[in-house]
Structure formats: structure tokens, C-alpha cells
């Protein structure tokens, strides 16, 4: 095989080539991030006429607020549930689609589609199914099954509804990665196990699942990041953090306090805490990628 490699004669050219990307990152990530960190140490009116440096006051106020700690707990519960639901369904669908010989491309395309739906729209869709006053499924459940379904007041009903709406959309994303992961697993291994008399279930747990673990880890990390941030649209459309604050996840609280309530100091401090959390998760991901490189190489 001929290896294609280009060498840059001057270093400057390389820098020039990466400059646009650096500029974009600086303008849309570093600059706002620094602004956010600065604002988190300030007490300011919305219009910025009175700004005072208050050290860690905003952070102290946050962590001494039991509702903020509760919101962290809610976020973890929500993210965990979204991850479990969307990963298990994604994996199930991928392993089924991997076996299907006919109509593969059609089913795959259909299964990927929901990922193209914006979170807010997904939320509205589920609301039209599950709202106790006008949701088709909710009214049916009450009429024929006698289930007392009321996400407007019952916090676990509400949590279930936002988890479903967020997970549904993310199943497609996970499906794509699992399918790719499954196709990378050598068939010979599975055939050999089958000849040794391993049941399909055993084959899955003993061979497919371990070989799929890199994908699994990647998908888990991505799903958790998704549910930390992107699920904002779902919460906003479905529960607005209610009932009684029981679905008020961190990112929604940032929005409520900053955008609606114009409490910029506190909302910046919350953003910084969120950023810290997500950096932690990303560091984990990088560690994993490095390990993977050693494993395959």
C-alpha cells in the first residue's frame, strides 16, 4: 500500500490553517466562558450599571440553598434514567437490526430519524400524548385502564414523562453507534461460539457485549452530556421544571435564573458549576480513549 503523507515545509502554514478553528473556539467558547467565570464573582443588575465584586458569595448562596442541592440530585436521577432507557433500547434495536437481512437500510433510516427532531418538538409530541387534559394516551389510560396519571401534580409521573421524551430522541443516536460497533465485531468469533453450543443469549453476554464495551462507554458519556444540556428543550416544553420543582434540572435552573429572572451572578455561578461537571466527564472520556488506543494498537 502506498502511504500518502504531506509535509509542511514551513510551520507558519500549519498555524495559519488551524487559525480559523482557533478563532471560532476562542470567540464562542473561551471568551464567553471567561465572561461567565468573571460574572459568577459579581453581583450585578441586569443592565450592568451596578456591578460589584463579591468573591464567592454567589457560590456560597448556591450551595447553601437546599433546592440547588436537590436540583443536582434531580439532574443525576434524570441523566441516569435517560442513559439507562436510551442505551438499553438503542442496544436492543441495534442488535435486532444487525440480524435483519432484509429491509436493513429502510429500518435503519427509520430508526435514525427521531434524532433529527429538536428536543422541544419531541417534548411537545410527548405532551400531546401524555398531558392529562389533552393527551391522547393519558386520556385513554384513565378511561380504559383506570390509571390515575397526573404529571401536573405527581412528580414521579412528571419525571417519567420528561425521561421518556428525552430518551426517545436519544435512542436513535445510540442506535447508530451500537450498530456500527456490532458490525465491527468479527463474525468468526460468534460462529465459533455457536459451534461450541453457546446459546444466543450467552453469545451476546460473553462475546458481543465485552467487545462492544468501548462503544458502550462512549455512548454513555455522550448520553449523559446530552441529558445535562440538550434536554433543556424537553423540560421547557413539557414541565417547566414542575411540579413543585421536581423536574428542575441544573441547566433549566440556569435558564430560569439567568434568562427569565435576570439574576446574572447566580446563573453564571451555576453555569460554572455545570461546566466543571462536564469537564470532569470529558476528562473521563479522554482517559478512556487513550486506554482504547493501547487496547487495539
Amino acid at each position, binding site marked *: 500500500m502506498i502511504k500518502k503523507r504531506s509535509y509542511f515545509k514551513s510551520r507558519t502554514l500549519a498555524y495559519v490553517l488551524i487559525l480559523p478553528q482557533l478563532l471560532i473556539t476562542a470567540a464562542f467558547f473561551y471568551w464567553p466562558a471567561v465572561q461567565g467565570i468573571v460574572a459568577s464573582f459579581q453581583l450585578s443588575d441586569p*443592565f450592568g450599571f451596578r456591578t460589584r465584586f463579591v468573591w464567592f458569595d454567589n457560590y456560597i448562596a448556591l450551595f447553601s440553598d437546599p433546592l440547588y442541592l436537590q436540583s443536582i440530585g434531580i439532574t443525576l436521577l434524570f441523566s441516569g434514567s435517560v442513559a439507562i432507557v436510551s442505551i438499553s433500547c438503542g442496544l436492543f434495536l441495534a442488535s435486532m437490526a444487525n440480524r435483519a437481512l432484509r429491509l436493513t437500510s429502510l429500518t435503519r433510516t427509520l430508526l435514525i430519524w427521531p434524532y433529527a427532531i429538536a428536543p422541544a418538538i419531541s417534548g411537545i409530541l410527548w405532551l400531546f400524548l401524555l398531558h392529562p387534559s*389533552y393527551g391522547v394516551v393519558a386520556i385513554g389510560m384513565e378511561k380504559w385502564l383506570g390509571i390515575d396519571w397526573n404529571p401536573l401534580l405527581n412528580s414521579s409521573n412528571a419525571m417519567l414523562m420528561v425521561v421518556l421524551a428525552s430518551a426517545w430522541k436519544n435512542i436513535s443516536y445510540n442506535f447508530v453507534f451500537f450498530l456500527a460497533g456490532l458490525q465491527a465485531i468479527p463474525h468468526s468469533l460468534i460462529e465459533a461460539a455457536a459451534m461450541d453450543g453457546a446459546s444466543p443469549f450467552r453469545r451476546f453476554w460473553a462475546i458481543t457485549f465485552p467487545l462492544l464495551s468501548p462503544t458502550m462507554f462512549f455512548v454513555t458519556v455522550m448520553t449523559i452530556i446530552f441529558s445535562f444540556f440538550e434536554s433543556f428543550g424537553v423540560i421547557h416544553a413539557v414541565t417547566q421544571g414542575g411540579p413543585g420543582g421536581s423536574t428542575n434540572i441544573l441547566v433549566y435552573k440556569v435558564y430560569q435564573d439567568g434568562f427569565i429572572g435576570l439574576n446574572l451572578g447566580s446563573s453564571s455561578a451555576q453555569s460554572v458549576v455545570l461546566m466543571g461537571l462536564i469537564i470532569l466527564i470529558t476528562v473521563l472520556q479522554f482517559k478512556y480513549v487513550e486506554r482504547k488506543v493501547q487496547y487495539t494498537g
Partner: protein
Amino acid sequence: MSKSKCFWLVMAVAMLISFAGSAFAKPIEINWWHAMRGARGEVVQKIVDGFNNSQSDYKVIPVYKGSYDEVVNAGVAAVRAGKQPHILQSFEVGTQTMMMSGAIYPVHQLMADKGYKIDWSQYLQPVLSYYMNADGNLMSMPFNSSTPVMYYNVDLFKKAGIPMLSKEKPITWDQMGEITGKLVKSGVKGGLVTAWQSWTQIENYSAIHNIPFATRANGYEGLDTVLLINNEKVVNHIARLKSWMADKRFYYGGQKYQGPKSEFIAQNAGLYIDSISGIAKLKKAVHDFTWDVAPLPVESWMKEPQNSIIGGASLWVFKGLPKKDYAGVAAFLKHLAGNESQILWHKSTGYFPITLTAYDQLKTDGYYKKNPLQEVGIKQLTRRIPTKISRGLRLGYFIQIRNIINEELELVWSGKKTAQQAMDNAAARSNVKLREFERIYK
């Protein structure tokens, strides 16, 4: 001369001509950022066209900037960047923030500076008083104002043998208990639902019964205000609503209006409390039953119920723009408050006319004879001179406070807290927010 040089020359000449032209003939542009979409936006455009066509010195440009909070955010960002519009529409809960911002030109001062002698007593006082400072000076121009009223299902009332309600004399809450009881007994799924629970069941309940919502005259007289909503009367009201939930005489349809409204439309609830803007919505949506409007219920001990309070938004003028522009802003606000604009606005949106002259004109025109539903709210709003307690609420971080109240009320409805616990907690949590707000301006 090369081709490109020729091109530049032509461009330069063209630009010169257009600059010269604009310096002579172009009217001063006045930007108005608002949150009125769809049909309301069209009425805004009509009012603006009326002004623009009536003179040639100024041209008002209305821009729809999204929902209320998006408009306020756009305003905040614009002020920070020094590119503020002349006029910004802000919702009533943002009043304190706008007033304290240091970015505004108070409307009473603007009108006085520009030589308009306005007889403010000719305005609807409960509307004005929401946007006045402690000294009774108007800070922003009221624009779209509404108040909550009660809708009821005439057919269900007939079926249950309940007499129709008066459009002027409110029923008592005790009667409400009997009526909803009869409705449920007659086979209706539920009695009463309410939209915007904090606004209708606590803010307006307090105003109508002249119960202070917060100290320092509901916050008008100082930032060091503390909520008083955990008083006995409000707590009893909430506890009563909760007790009615047992047999569905009252039930919860959600914080906003969509859920409760669909319960009323589906005839699951016989009574429904919502803003007067519900009239237009119900006219559009209800086809299979007749409904009517009545004033909000009142406690039997309240012999002379106070005015209800408004919701909606007002127009704020930003300072720091070229001096010559402000004469145009004042002229436009004058046009906006004129009879023609107000009558058009009221007829096409249902929001209150802000002047008594416009209201009287509508009365003499016989508008309310033909549209009796429209007068229920305005009569409830103007039935008494507002007191220091019923004139409005002036709280920092009011949006967060409403959120807190909504959360705590939901905990009552779901049975996790008693009314007393929830209102105590709502007051305590809100007071933290009020102190945070106060600290900014110290």
C-alpha cells in the same frame, strides 16, 4: 479610466446623493420592540401606521422581538451595547427591574418635558397605579392590560339547576362551594379550575380583599419589603381550595392557561378562572355549549370588594438616545393613548382601554350592549379607587417569586404540604430573593 475606477466613482456619487437625500427628507426613526404576535401584532401595526401617516417628522418602527422575556432580554443586551430602542414593552412582573434599572426615562417626566399637560385622572386608575412610583408618578405607559374573571358553562349550570351568575355582583366563595358541589353532584367531572394560580388566587385574591401581599405597601415604598402571603386569610383560602379537591369541586389543571382552558372546553369543569383574554380564545374554541363571564368570587365578610389587579405589559422609554428623538416618542405615546388607538386596541384584542374617555366613548357607542362580556373585567377593575394595597405589586425578582409560589402551591395540591407550611415556605424563599435583589441596589 479603468473599469474598476469608473465603478467606484459611480458608487461614490450614488452614496453622496443618497446621504444628501436622507439628511433632508428622512423622518426620525423611533424603534419600538414589542412582544405582540399574530393578530395583536397586526393591531400594533395599524396603530403605528395611524401615527406615521398623521405626520412626517417621525417614523415609528415596531419590531416583534419574541415572548415577553425575550423582549426584556433583547432590551438588556441592547442597553449594555449602547444600542437601545426608544420604546420597550416589558411585562408587569418586570416593573421593579425596569424601574430600578437606571436606563429609563420616566414617562411622566418625558411628557412634561415635551410640553404635554396630561390629565392623568382621566386614566383608569388601577391600570396606572401598577406602573406608578411611590409618589404617584407614572413610570411607564400602560399598554396591554387585563385582569382575571370567571367563566362558567351555562349549559352545565342549567342541567344542575344553578341560577345564572350576575355580571356585576360577585358571588361569595361560600356560594362557590355550593355551586361546585351541585355541579359535581349533577355528574360533571369537576367544579372549578384556575389558570395562572399565583396571579388569580393569591395576588388578585389579596387585592380584592385588601390584604397586604408584602410589607412597605406591597413593595412600592422600599426594597426592604417582606412577603405577607402566609397570612390567615390567604392560607384559609388555599386550604379551602385544597379541601375541595377531595370531591373534585376544585382541581388542578396546570400553572399556565392551556391545561385549565382545555378542561373547561372539554366540559370537565363548569367554572374556569382566567384573564379576560380568555374571551377571544373561548369564542374561537367553544362550539358545543354556551358560556358566560362573571366577576371573581369574594368572601362573604368583604362587603365592599376592592378592584382586581392587572396583568399584561407596559411601554418603557430608554434614555441616552439623541435628544431630538424624544419629542417623537412623546408624540407617539400621546397618539397611543388617544381615543382612536385605544378603542381599536380594546375592540380587536380585548385588552382594556387605558383612558376613561375611551371607555366612555365605547359606552356611548353602545359597544358594551353588544359585547357585555367585555365589560365584566373593566367593571371589576374600576369598582373602587385602588388602595395602597390593591393598586399593584412592586417586587424585585418577581418572576422567581411567582415561580416559588407556583411550586409551593403544587405541593399543597399534591398533598405534600399543608397550606400553612407551603405559604410559610413560599414567603421565606421569596424573602431570600427579595434580599438578594435589595443587595444589588445598596
